[in-house]
Structures are given as structure tokens and as C-alpha cells.
């Protein structure tokens, strides 16, 4: 139940970042691991609300107060169980999620939100370290087979749930590697690919079969697929940035983050040395980047790696004004739905001096 008066006693504290000088030399993640004691204090700040708005705000419906409390009481093992109960891959969401839970946190009415995302990430990392995350193959087989088309977060979660109740699951991926958005959409500095691979290994051990290079409808027709499997789940990704209603967005002056991400990942895969590399269009003094997100800070950080070659960079963030992404389906088959009529692009620009300390600027 958290500490009753915790939110009055402790301030919010987050993870420290690696020094800029260090992190411009590699592709690795930016935040440093946090101390357990600090995290317990952060867990103590949770008020265990009668209506936990964070739990509502979370697209997955994570039962956040429960594991906040378990962390506060040092029950890490129970915490990962509580976290896994609603979330197949906390290590992804703990890094990548824009944390609408924190925006909904009741503590934030009078002070700063509980560091929910940090707690989430730390719980799962601790669980991996302790060896608590192990393959959980089904106790018995149902004898049915399911094909999951697409290996993004939705496809993976779906596959894991289906496998655990005993179905034979095959995941079909068009690209050469499994992961979809997780592999080709998320830059390394936000989530290192080893995190994904670690999870895929568990899933394979649970008996999930992954097939890459299968482009359903192109090199495998639907009829064959339907004949071969008892059920199909379509979890295809977007693969295309959504149209952003900003004048001139298609001009050469802008770079959409999606393309930079893909290129970056490709560079990494080719084992090129992790040296600072200009990823923005070469030869320009300044550059513009457009991203759709709700968390400017994270993206400001990201820009550091892009801005290396530029003297200045303009970052345009597009935020839906009040509609939060709504969730459809249960865990494992999550998909985000942006209600079109409510989306209104608002462009926020942040100017960065070259090689400035991005955090401080971005915070403003």
C-alpha cells in the first residue's frame, strides 16, 4: 500500500544520464541504472489511490500501485509477477512508453508524478538479472496451431500468450529479422537491440517458431496460410509514417524520424563502428526533424545523435491535443488507435545549439 505519507516525504528523482561526452561516442542507451534504495523511496511516493488514474492512463492497464508497493516493500519477485500479469514485455515499455501513467498520476496534482516508468524498467531488469524471467512453456499442448503475421510488439505479445495456453505458434515476419517496430523503429540509444533479442530467446525456448522473410500476400498467399493453420492473427505494422498535417512536411527541409531510425539500425547491423556519424542530411547547417510523440524530453535526447553534424536543429513535435491513444483488445493484442477527428497537429520547436547539453534545453 505504499507508504502512507511517502509522497509528502520524498521528492521525485529519476535516473541519471550518462555524460554527453561519453554517449556521443556510442549508440548505447542514455540513462544509468538506479540504486535500489532510491527506487524504493520512489515506490513509497505512490499513494495507492482509490481510483488509480495511472492504471487507467496506462494503455496496457498495468496495475501500477501494486508493483509500486511491492518495490517499496522490497518484494521484487512479486513485483515482476504483478508486472508481467498485464504486460508481456515491461523491458520494452519501461524504455519506450511515453508514460501517460505519469501524466495521470494523482501525486502530480500537488507535486511531481511517481517515477512509474523508471520503476517498471528497473523491476524487469532486476528480474532478468536474478534469472526470474525463464521460459514458461505450456504444461500441455492443445494440438492447435496459430500463425501470427507480423513480429512487432503486438505480434510478439500475442504469440507469447497463445503459446502459453498450449497452441503451436508460428510468427511470420516479412523483414530479415524479428521485431518490427522494436527493431527497425526504435533507435539503439532508446533501446538496445540486445534487450529485444533477450526476450526473443525466451520466446523461442517456450516453443514459438519464428519465420522471417515471409511476406504474406507476396511470397505466401493467404489461402495456403489458412489451410496450414487453425487460426490466424494479423498484427501487421504501419511501416509508414502517418501523414502529419504540417504545411510543407514533405519538402526536403524535413526529415521524418522513421527514416533515420531505419538507417541507423541498418548501420548497426552492418557492424559499422559505433562512432559518431552524421545521420542528418549531409552538408546542411541546420536540419528539421518531425516526430509524433508526447514526450519531448526523450526526443530531445534523441536529437543529440542526429544533430552532431548540424550546427542547429529544429525539432517539430506533433502532439494530439487531448486524445490519448486508446487501446483495443487485451494484453498481447494491443493496438493503438488514434481517433482521427481529435488529432490536431501542433508543432513545437526546440532549437538546439550544436553539441549542447540536450536535457537542459529540452526541459524548457
Amino acid at each position, binding site marked *: *500500500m505504499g507508504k*502512507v*505519507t511517502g*509522497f*509528502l516525504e520524498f521528492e521525485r528523482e529519476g535516473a541519471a544520464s550518462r555524460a554527453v561526452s561519453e554517449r556521443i561516442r556510442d549508440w548505447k542507451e542514455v540513462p544509468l541504472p538506479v540504486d535500489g534504495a532510491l527506487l524504493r523511496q520512489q515506490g513509497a511516493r505512490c*499513494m*495507492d*489511490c*482509490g*481510483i*488509480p*488514474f495511472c*492504471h*487507467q*492512463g496506462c494503455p496496457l*492497464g498495468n*496495475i501500477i*500501485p*501494486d508493483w509500486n508497493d511491492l518495490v517499496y*516493500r522490497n*518484494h521484487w519477485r*512479486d513485483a515482476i*509477477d*504483478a508486472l508481467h*500479469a498485464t504486460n508481456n514485455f515491461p523491458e520494452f515499455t519501461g524504455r519506450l512508453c511515453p508514460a501517460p501513467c505519469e501524466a*495521470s498520476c*494523482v*501525486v502530480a*496534482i*500537488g507535486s511531481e508524478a511517481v517515477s512509474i516508468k523508471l520503476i517498471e524498467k528497473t523491476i524487469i531488469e532486476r528480474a532478468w538479472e536474478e534469472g526470474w524471467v525463464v521460459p514458461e512453456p*505450456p*504444461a*500441455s499442448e*492443445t494440438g492447435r496451431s496459430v500463425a501470427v503475421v507480423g513480429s512487432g510488439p503486438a505480434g510478439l505479445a500475442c504469440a507469447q500468450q497463445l503459446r*502459453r*495456453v*498450449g497452441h503451436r505458434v508460428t510468427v511470420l515476419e516479412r523483414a530479415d529479422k524479428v521485431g518490427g517496430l522494436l527493431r527497425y523503429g526504435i533507435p539503439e540509444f532508446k533501446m538496445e537491440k540486445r534487450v529485444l533479442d533477450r526476450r526473443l530467446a525466451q520466446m523461442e525456448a517456450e516453443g514459438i517458431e519464428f519465420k522471417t522473410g515471409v511476406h504474406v500476400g507476396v511470397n505466401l498467399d493467404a489461402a495456403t496460410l489458412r489451410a496450414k493453420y487453425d487460426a490466424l492473427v494479423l498484427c501487421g505494422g504501419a511501416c509508414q509514417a502517418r501523414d502529419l498535417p504540417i504545411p510543407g512536411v514533405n519538402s526536403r527541409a524535413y526529415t521524418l524520424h522513421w527514416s533515420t531510425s531505419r538507417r541507423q539500425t541498418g548501420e548497426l547491423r552492418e557492424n559499422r563502428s559505433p562512432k559518431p556519424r552524421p545521420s542528418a542530411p549531409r552538408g546542411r547547417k541546420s536540419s528539421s526533424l518531425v516526430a509524433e510523440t508526447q514526450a519531448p524530453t526523450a526526443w530531445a535526447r534523441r536529437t543529440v545523435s542526429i544533430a552532431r553534424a548540424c550546427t542547429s536543429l529544429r525539432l517539430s513535435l506533433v502532439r494530439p491535443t487531448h486524445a490519448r491513444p486508446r487501446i483495443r483488445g487485451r494484453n498481447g493484442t494491443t493496438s493503438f488507435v488514434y481517433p482521427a477527428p481529435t488529432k490536431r497537429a501542433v508543432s513545437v520547436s526546440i532549437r538546439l545549439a550544436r553539441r549542447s547539453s540536450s536535457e537542459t534545453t529540452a526541459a524548457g
Partner: protein
Amino acid sequence: MDDSELMKQGLYDPRYEHDSCGVGFLVHLKGERSHRIVRDAITALNNLNHRGACGCEVNTGDGAGVLIQIPHEFFLEKCTPWGIRLPGAREYGAGCLFMPKHPDQAIHGKRLFEEIVVEEGQRFLGWRPVPTSNHSLGASAITREPAMAQAFVGCGSGIDATDQFERKLYVIRKRFESALNASGMHGYRQFYFCSLSCHTLVYKGMLTPWQLDLYFPDLREPSLRSSFCMFHSRFSTNTFPNWQLAHPYRMIAHNGEINTLRGNINWMRARETLMESELFDPGDVRKLLPIIAEGQSDTASIDNVVELLVKAGRSPAQAMTMLIPEAWENHQSMSQEKKDFYDFQSRLMEPWDGPASIVVTDGKTIGATLDRNGLRPSRYWVSRDALVIMASEVGVLDIPPDQIAGKGRLEPGKMFLIDLDSQRIVDDEELKSGLAASRPYSTWLRERRVTLDGLPEAPYVPQSDAESLLRRQLTFGYTQEDLKYILGPMAKDGLWAIGSMGTDTPLAVLSDRPQLLYNYFKQLFAQVTNPPLDPIREELVTTVSTSLGPEDNLLAERVNALQQISLPSFVLTNRDAARIRYLDGWRGFRTEILPMLFRAEEGSAGMRWALENLFRKAKAAIESGASILFLSDRGTDAEHAPIPSLLACSGLHHFLVREQIRTRAGLVVESGDCREVHHFCLLLGYGAAAINPYLAFESIERMVAEGQLEGIDTGEAVESFIKAVYKGVVKVMSKMGISTISGYHGAQIFEAIGLNERFIDRYFPNTPSRIRGIGVEEITRETLTHHCSAFPKRPHARKSLPCGGQYQWRRNGEHHLFNPETVYTLQRATRSGNYEVFKSYSDRVNDQGKRLCTLRGLMEFNFDQRRPIPVDEVESVDSIVKRFCTGAMSYGSISAEAHSTLAIAMNRLGGWSNTGEGGEDPERFLPLPNGDSRRSRIKQVASGRFGVTSGYLVSADELQIKMAQGAKPGEGGELPGHKVYPWIAKTRHTTPGVGLISPPPHHDIYSIEDLAQLIFDLKNANPRARISVKLVAEVGVGTVAAGVAKAHADVVLVSGHDGGTGASPLTSIKHAGIPWELGLAETQQTLVLNNLRDRIVVQTDGQLKTGRDVVVAALLGAEEFGFASAPLVTLGCVMMRVCHQDTCPVGVATQNPELRKRFQGRPEHVVNFFRFIAQEVRELMAQLGFRTMDAMIGRSDLLDMREAIDHHKARGLDFSEIFHRPVPGQTVEYRRTMPQDHGLADALDLQLLQHFAIRRILDLPQRVRWCPAVQEEMATKKVVPNLSEVEIPRAELELPIRNVNRTLGTLLGSEITRRFGLEGLPDDSIRIKFGGSAGQSFGAFLPRGITLILEGDSNDYVGKGLSGGKIVAFPPKTSTFRAEDNVLIGNVALYGATGGRAFFRGRAGERFCVRNSGAFAVAEGTGDHCCEYMTGGVVVVLGPTGRNFAAGMSGGVAFVLDEAGDFGVRCNPEMVNIEPVDDPEDHQVILQLLREHLENTGSSVALRLLGDWDDAVRKLVKVMPKECGRDLQDEGRARLHPEWVVNAEAAGQTEAADRQIEAAGVPHG
């Protein structure tokens, strides 16, 4: 009027009628028979008129009657003309028979009776028509007036003793009753024998006391002589004409109520087959059955049993000690013999528990007894000419003071008996020692008693199985919340969990989630007609011990009755359960194990079959000698699902009752599904004697192993859990006013919501369930859903329990009306003032198409019945909002900011805000510079009486008596010490940092006539305010509301069960009370049926959230509407549900100055909310075609149940009873149309106000305006800032007084306060001296400046709420008894006093100075529970005290003269220390008070003590609250709350206000 009209209709059911009354007797000790006794008794009865009531007609009473000896001479004279030849005295029996008016019907009954007399071998002598004269009666009494005739039966030949003849008469009467019932003859219900005896005769009827001898001319005949006369005047909650319900019954008259009635009736039925008696002729005992006729009142039922026991050879005294034993279990000073006597009796009969002052007679002795709590007043006088008068009040008869030999009162659990044969008074001690010695009870017990510890060890104790635990938890429907909220706190702290903000989840029958059967039952609780108890502070009357095993013949007293196992409590550990399980014939005990399992695949047929099989096996086992039935659901697996243990237990209990073999075996339940206090209560209430909750134990074990309960081991955790269960169950019993487990056992104090008739009749007979619903099918389905989650068809097993979501919102959990979306939209709507957004909020709340939540969600409007009108023709928003009020939330529970924001908003709207029970800072009486007012128009008067001063009362527009609260009916509020900040303590007249307790009952309301008295008191204290009574919905609330209307309240508020709260046990939040829809509809129907609706406003509240809710409530009969949770949400509340922790993060429900800074609410938000609601109401009214709210009230015909409900459980519901509209007459009103008559016109105070000396004072220039809102009309008069500028003339008066002059000085006091403010006048400005016996509430709420002097004695509630005035009482100068040995004033004196002084030369009754928070008082002896819950002031007791002194005392100080040196055992040391008086300051205080006492009363005790002060000091002891060591306390407080020291000022308290409070609360001198 036909019988059928009296019968159940709609939600009204006559079985919930309550009554209460004035009772007493008059007896000549020497047995001298005279007509004067009867005359005097009738005079006395007339002086108790105010304790009775009348309904819609002033000349229709609820009942009055007398019981006298057979007036032989009178009968000789009167019978001759009718040809009846009477034998000698006591050789014939006589009795009055009520008959149908129709002569043909009457003659049938008479014939039947005559035949039975002859068949029983007696002689029938004849009928004498009873002369009556009904010209004074009201119409409704006349419509039901029976014909009356006295029957005379002569003694047959074979009978030589009067006792034997008396028994025969009893058999004849019982046979006559059974024969009538069996005949089904038209009008058979109207035959009724008032009595049939050779000793006593009853005259009674539906009369007021003054009509009694007008109606029965017999009573005026001088030849009608008796040596005693028992009398009774009835106050019933209803006005349905019923002549039979008048008292006295055949042997008793009763003031009070039996709470355990249903259980008592069942048990009596169950033991009928075992009854045998040699005193009766062979076969006669069978003719007496059923002993208790079905469908009678509680008094009639207990009378039936007393009659049986006495006729079967026990003395009336012994019968009464069996039925209403005193609290012997925990009695420290009672002799072992007496305890053994009670112990033995307890094996034969469970207590009939409840408040009771019962007078009993068999014609040879007459006596009175009082319940173990002493909850009814019973006073007696003995005169020098051998007259003894016992009555509910003193002063009912004028006896010259010098003729009085002694005055006393009946003490709790004690008896008072007059033996007419030996012509003397037998006191309690002699009586009970005699009874205890009448048989060798102690020897029997020593030899035969079997205790749990004495049982042999079991060969095998079932072990925990961690492996399968989760699976079994799932089978029994455990959720994570069960661990977190239920088992966790119970196992860790031995306490039940506390929650806040009520409940907004669906009723079990509307929930989508599978529910335990337990959740369909709601606990009943006491309100108004009987008091709840305080099991913590008054623990000495409660007990959890019980016994298990067969009962013996009730009519014998044999050692066989001890063939039972004494259990110290009803919870069995695994070891104890195993010992009982494997008894196997040890000392004749045989246990039959009955598995509560059914085959899952067979579904409901399987469950039904398994139940029937279980019943069959149980019967066979009993017949072959088993004495313990052991129900167990161990052994569940994939094939076998558990039968809900409550279903198996209750089903079996009732099956065995029906088979009449229930008392031959005890029931033990070993079950995995019971874990909450509520579950244990239900199992006990439906027949289980002992329970083994093995899965709860195992779950706790697991929690300990997993480190979820830090700092304790498994043993401690289990022990704490068991302790918490005891405490919890005792608390639940206490809410109904029941103090023993054996009384609660089988008493089924519950009502069901959503269970259908067939199911209830089969398995839970006589449990009210009024909207039908589900049955075995659905129950099985829910059980199997749980079972299926444990043994899923798919192999993917759950790794953890489901989340639950009952207490906290969870996305996958139970639905809540307040959820993230509704909270957010409501806040956005009211902050922005956007009605469109508000509509989206209310749509979300109202749309229960998918997720049902409330009963009203299933209702829909009949829009097509009336033509719609345009919205602009509807009554305006401004007018509708005047019907809205905010809920009673105390200052203390919520912050000053939130509290005054609500008040400002409601005042702007012209609606009503409510202080709650925490008093109000006088600063708030003054308007703010911008014209806003922070004064709450409704001032609440709750049981704690915090801050209830004369000024508080005068400053109100409405005074609300809180009888119960939706979230915790039957319990008192508690403000934990850490929330009692200095500014709170100041407003409440208490000490900062010390927790505050409100007693569960109002100690001046133990029954309906007491409520009438408090209403009268408050009306006197502020004649301009309307008086409201707050009730909580439960079955029977309509009947209570009718009583409230008859007690002259102006408003009755029916709250739903789901209302918010600052803090309440979760058990109460979830399981007590019912939705307002049911309570309101029942209230409306009952009031209309009684033709009482026209005189009282009906208000409702409980999770009202939208305009639609308001319209539904209006159509069901409400005129005004209360909102609490929703306005709080507009002020920022986000349903944290932590109000009790003082950590509210939005500054609403906290006193912490840091958090209060976060408060964002503004009056505009609240104003927006209410205007939006009103607008919604208007829109709906337009659609329904109503122009005014008034036209809409009570139009339940415009409501319908929603069609096409596809919810699998809700389908079976039926609301037709809710929508029922009674139409008793043409002229009946459905809303309030006329004012109540409060009877103030007769008040003696009006004479006082006219007196020239007092007028002179009242006409003085007034003090500066202290509360302009109530002083308007004085605006033109001269005001002075300071009274010292004016010379105050003194007023001295002298007047006679008698007991009918109630609430004396209060009206005068209110006028003084209104004019001169909170400080009142200088001491002794007005001195009034009275001679005689004062009525109740003498000097209530007396402000400073008035002194009342009483030479005589007084009834209950002297100086209630004393606010600075002075009261002096002493016996008449001419009396000859020793003042200090005699009772001078009644019970509950100085209740809730906040200041002033009181001196009593004589003893006080029970609960002297209860909740005193500032008065200085001296008395010369007190009853039990003196200084209970006291928080301030000084009490000096110069004589013996009763037991439980200073229970719950957290402030103030008491000094007791302990001459015998045994005060220690009578003091409750829980919260106080007893110290010697060695502080010189204390000496000064006592000396000062003693001198004043002597000077005012002439006390000889004071004189003696002052004469030898050094000796006196040695005998005095000081009683001091432990928490109250001043320095220590300040230090502790500073440590706990450093901000108190600096922030007291910042909290909005100005010095001026401080001074005002001090002036109001602290006495001068």
C-alpha cells in the same frame, strides 16, 4: 376494515412494527385490595401520556391498558344479572375476549370456546358483555373496535389446586387459539383473549391513557378492587388500528424491544418436541403448541414463553432470569454459585436480548426486571403506608414528600420483586441467591461440564498444503483484495480494515463478476426503536462464549442439560476442529461429518441433490444419536465443487427446525469460503455454533511465509485474525443491540437483496428479500465460475488471484460509478461551467445499459403517460436548487476550506449545507465582507454532541438528529487523534491529539419515545428550526419513519447504504444497509398508508449523482435531496479513499496545513454542479409533463422496470413492490402539506417568558450581533458591544413542577442566547426554584445566566447539553430519608454538557456525565458507566459508583469518594489512571466545589467532608485520562505534528473566535 388491508402490501410489512412505552405498576405491600390502587394507577398512566403517542388523529392512541387481580366482589355484583353464578374466589377463571363485531361470527367463536372448556373437564359459567363507551375514540380506532365479552370458567371436579386450575385455563386458551387458526373461520384473527386466569384480569385497548377509564366504565366502579395494578401506555411506530397489540399481555408489560426475536422464535419452535412436563396432564403439553403464535409482536412472543415457563412450574423471577439474564459472564464480583446458575440456564434458553424494562406478575408476585444494559428507565418509590410504585418515570403520582420511605431505580440486569404472600419486597441479591441455591447447579457443572480444552486430542489434524493453496483460493473466490484488505489487516493488527468514501460498486445481483452468496445479504442494525451498543467501551455486557451440542427438555431442570461442549468462542482452530471432528462417542458425543460438495459437471441439479442428500443424512444421523453435525467442504477437486457453506448451513438449520429436531444437535462449519467478519456473522446468524475457516488460516500462513505481514510469525498472525473476527462479529451484533453470541446464534438479523422467493423460502425462511432475483441456478453458476478458474478447461493456470476491485477501482475489476472517466468529466464540467461536458458526465453515470450498478439504473420513465411540456414552463433552476443539501461531513473529517466552500456555495444557492457532527466555529456565523455566509444552515446533533451548545442550536435553520449514517449504520464516528488538530479540538470542546469517539447510540435515545423527547428538546432549544431525523435504509425503515413522524419531526432523511464517510470498517461500508430506492419507497408507502405523509418532509441521499437520480427519487417520494460525494469531487476529490489517514492529496479530507494548501475547490464549482443538476431535472420534468416538483413527488406510477434486461442475474428482479402506490383514502397526501404540532404551547417555559422579571431582562439592549442570520428581526433594536455596559436586573421565581413539565428552561435559554449571544448573561441573573418531580430533560442546553433549583427529584436527562447554566437539585426539605442513599435524578444526566455547573444532593442514575466536555458536576452516587466518553469538565462523586466508570474517558477529570476502598474494580482502566489526590490545585478545585455544593443543596455529605478535610482527602481518588498528562501530551503533540505549534493561528482561527468559544464552553467561577 378487513384484515387483508392490514396485511403486507408493497414494501410495507406489519412485522416490522415497533413499540415502546411508559410502563409501571402500583402495589399495596400488605395486599390490601382497594379501588384506589386502580384509580391511582390510571392517574399515573395519564401522567405517562407523553411516552405514548397518537397517530394522524389526536384521539386515537396506540394502546393503553391495566392488569389487576380478579375483582371477585365486583364480579359477584356484575355477573348475577347475566345469570352467571360464580363460585368462590380463585375457583373460577375469567378473561376478556375480543371478538368480531359481527354477531354471527362472534357466536361461532363463543361456541367453540365453550366446547373446549367442557372437553377439558371444566365448567363453563357464562359470558358477560363488557360495557364500553367509544364516544371519545377516533375514527380509526373505532373501525377496528372489537366486541368484548368476559368469559367465566368454573373449576372442574378433579382439580384441587389453583395452580393446576390455572394450567388448565392456559391449556384451554391455547387450544382455543389453535382451533380458531385451524378453522379458518371468517374473522378468526379478531378473536383474542386479553387474559384467562383465576388470578389476574386485563383491560386494554387501542386507547390513549385518558380514554382508558372512559372506555371501560368498569374501571370507574368502586367495587372493582385490587391490591396491585400494572399499567402501560404504548407508543407504536405505526398507526394501524390494532387492539390486540396494547399491553399488558397476560403476564407482562414491556417497555423496549427484543432484538433477537426471529432467532428466539425459531429456537422455541425447534425445542417444542423435546418439551415434557409432569405438571401438566398427559398430552396437555402438545395442546400448547405452537408456544409462540406466528406473526405477533416481540412482547406478545416473550409473554407466551414466560407464560409457558411459569405454568410449567418456574417462578416468574426464574423465568425472567432465564429470558433476560444479567451480564454474568464477565462479572468480576458475582458469586460463583450465581454464575453457575446462569451458566446452567444458558444451556436451556438463549437470551432474549434487547432493551427491556419488563414488569411481570402471576397474580401472586409482581416484579420488574431490566435488561443487562439498563437501557430503559425504571424508578420506584416506597411510601410509608406500604404503597410501592414502579414506573418509567418518577412523579407520576403525587405522594407527599414526608410519606416517602425511599426512592430507588432498577439497575441493569437487576430484578425488583414484591411477594404478595409474604408481603414484602425481595431485593435482587436475595432473589437470585435463592434461585442459585434452589438446585445443585454448581455440583452438576463441576461433574458434567465439558470444555473444549478437556476434549481428547484428535488422531489427525489436517495440515496446510501450500502446493494447492492458490487453486483452492480460486475455488472459493479469493481475490487479491481479500488478502490486502481483509486478511492482511486482521492478521497483522487484530483489527478490521478501515475505508472511506462509501461504496459505488454494483449490488451483488447486478454485478457481472461472480459473487459469494454472502454478498447477497445485508446486515440489519438498530435505529431509533432500539439502541446499538458500544462493544468496546461497554465490553462487560458482551460475550463470545457459546456451547455446542444437544439441548434438554426446557421444562425440566436436569443435569442432562449439560451434555454440551462449552466453547470459549465460535472460531475453531484446525486443532480444535479436528478434536470435535473425531469425538467418536467420547462421553456420548458423536460427530457426523457431512461433506458440502457437489459434482461440478451436474450443475445446479447436482447442487440441489447434494443439499437434499446432506439434509437426509443429517436427519438419519440425529436419529441414530449424533449430537454434532460437522459440515465440511474440504476435498474440493476438479470434479467436486463446494456448496456455498452459508447455503448448506442455513438450509440444514431450517430443515432441522422444520423437522423439529434442531435442538438435538449442534452445527459446526468447516469451510474455505468464510474469511470476512460478515461471513462469520452470517454463518452464526443462520445456525452455525462454531466455524473453522481453514483456508483463511492457510492464506495467512502463506502471507507470513512470503513476508507480506512483517514482524509477526504464523501463530501470532492466526491469533490476531481470530481476535479480529471476535471483535468484528461482536461489533456487528452490537449494531443490532445484541450483546451475546448465544443470542445472535440463529437470530438471522439480515435481509437479502436479489434472491428469489423460492430460494429464500427453502433455505433462508423468514429472511426479507423484496425484489426477488436469483435462485439455485445462478448461485451454482457463480460457484462454478470460481471452480472453473481454479480448474480451467485450458491448461494455462492462473499464477495469481484476480484483482477484485471492490475497494479500489481496477480496470479488470468491479465496476464503480466513480471511475477515472466520471471523476474527470465531472471536474472539468464544473470548473469550466460547461453544461455539455456535464451532460457527458451524467450520461456516463446514467447509462447502465452495459454495466449495471444501481437499482435506479434498471428503472425507466413512462414518458408516454403524460403530455410533455416545453422546458421553459417548468419550475426554475433557482427554485429547484432550494431542495438540495450537502451531506453531513464534519469539520474535522474535512478541512476548513472544503467545509466552508460548501457552505458558501449552498448559501449562495439558497440550499442547505450541513455542519456534520463536529460543531461549527462561531466565527462562521458572521458574514464575510463580500456578503457570503459560511454558516451551515443544517446543524447536526449526533451521538457525540461535539460542540452542541445553546448557541450552536440557536444559529441553525434545521437541526438534524443523526440516528445512523449510510456508511456505518449502528456505529459511532471516530476521529483519530492525529486528526484532532488544535483548531478542531477547540470547535469540539476537546483536547488536541486525543482521538474522539462518538457513542454508537445517542444515550438519550434508546427507543422511539426517547426520540420524541429529543425532538421536543431541540424544538425548545430553537423553535424556529425544523427538526430532521436521519435514518438509513433497511427493511422496516418505513415503520421507523412513521414513528419519527409521530414523534413530531419535521423532516425525515432516508440515506442509502452507499453514502460516503470519513472512516468506517469495510464490513459496514459493504454489508450494512440497503439502497435508498428501497428505503425511500418503503418510507413513502408506510407514511402514506398511515396518513402521516402530509406532516413530514422526506429527504433522501446516497450516491445521488445526476438529475435523473433526483427525478427517480422524487417519483419515489422524496421532496429534498442530499449530495455529498459528488460535490466533494467538484472540489477536487479524486476518490483516494484515504480520508481516515489525513493524507488527502487535494486538501479536502485533511487537516494537515501543507495538504490544505493544495485545495483547489471554489464555491462556483459547487454552484455549477447543483445548477446543472437542477437543469437536468427540469429537462426530465418537461419530458414527463410536470411544471412543478411538488406535482411529481410520489408519482411512482411513472416509473417502470427497464425491459429487455439481458443480464443473467438481473433478469429475475421485480420492482413492482417498489413502485406500489397505496391508496388508503380519498384525501391522503403524497407530500408534506401541513406543519407538525410540536406541543410547545403547553410548555411551562411560555409562562416563564411572560413573567415580568424575565421580560425585563429580555427587553434589555442586546449584545452585539453574533449571528445575524437568526437575529434579523432585532436589527432595529439597540445593540451594545458589551453587556457590562448595562445593568442586568435579577429575576427570582418560584414554581411548582411535575413530571409532565418536560424540557424545562430550554425555551427560555434559547431566547437568552438569541439575544445575548454565546456568552449568555452573568451567572445567576435568572434564578428559578421548582418544587416537585421534574420531567425529562430538566434544564437541557441551559445557557449561562440561568440557575434552576429543584426541590424534589427528577427524571432522565437532567442538564443535557448544559451550556453554561447552573442546575441544583435536592430532596424536599420535609423528606425523612437519607438523601445520599436515594435516587434523586434519572439516567444520562449532563449528557454532552459543554459548560456550566450542577449540584445534586442524592444519587444519579446510569451514565452520569456521559460525553461531558466542560461542565462541573457534583453528585452523591451514580449508576453504571459514569463519565463515559468524557472529554472535559470536572465530576465529583461523593458516594458509590456503578460499574464501568470512565469507559472511553479521554479528557477532564473525576474525583470519587471511595469510602469502601473498592472503587478500583468498578472503574474501567482502559483509558484512565486512578491516582491519589495530592496536587494542591486539585484540593482547591474539590474544596471549591464542595463548598458550593453545601451552600446550594445543604448536603450533609459535603458538610461532613469539609468538617474533616484531611480524612476526606485520603478517601478521595482522582480519575485521570492516561493521555491527558498535560506536559507529556503537549510534548507528544509537538513531536507528532510540529506544525500545530506554529500553524494554529494560520488555520483561520482568530483570537476573537477563541474567546467566544471559551466563553461558551468554559465555566466561570
